[in-house]
């Protein structure tokens, strides 16, 4: 199965990004492909390199970057939603790229399943 993942909320405030992360890991472990993770609405904050969680807590931004590197997953931050919220190249964490909303439609077309994680 080929998956597209849509994340609508930022790290920590909502569980969405965590749930999406665990789902993505489980899908890969089962041998499925995750074609792209698209970050929209406040989801763009998952790409903020300035995020500094407490040292005894998970670093969600880094978890996504490491997962993308390990499994060659395309992490895309919506440019329009990002601009509104100040997520630009200057603060973009490793593993993420910024692109347009067309990337979400594209993955809806290319994947077998598009799963949304949000509020």
């Amino acid at each position, binding site marked *: *199965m080929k*998956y597209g993942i849509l994340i*609508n909320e930022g790290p920590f405030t909502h*569980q*969405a990004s965590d*749930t999406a992360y*665990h*789902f993505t*890991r*489980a*899908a890969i*472990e*089962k041998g*499925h492909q995750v074609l792209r993770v698209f970050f929209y609405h406040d989801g763009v904050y998952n790409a903020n390199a300035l995020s500094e969680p407490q040292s005894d807590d998970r670093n969600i931004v880094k978890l996504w970057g490491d997962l993308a590197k390990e499994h060659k997953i395309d992490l895309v931050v919506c440019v329009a939603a990002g601009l509104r919220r100040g997520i630009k190249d200057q603060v973009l964490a490793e593993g993420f790229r910024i692109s347009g909303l067309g990337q979400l439609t594209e993955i809806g077309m290319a994947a*077998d*399943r*598009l*799963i*949304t*994680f*949000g*509020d």
Partner: protein
Amino acid sequence: MLHLVNKSPFERGAFESALNMARKGSAILLIEDGVYAALKNTPFEDKVSAAAKDIRICVLGPDLEARGVDQVIEGVEVVDYGGFVDLTVDHTPVQSWL
């Protein structure tokens, strides 16, 4: 079809909306704060039990554990993240009731 519900039925109408829209043969997976809808002794128990006759109702185990709750209504199936993935393989489309 797979319906995902992530909000407590006490907080939001999303669970009720999902129950209203879920047709025979579909599945509902309760995740995050949505797991509270899977518990015994709430005002939702009868609705959930009735729906479970035609719809596969599941609840995400890790989210139950995180919240320290485990008295799940009979007929509701506890799954892990792997089971979550399997549900998305078995059902399409997948709708998140946010």
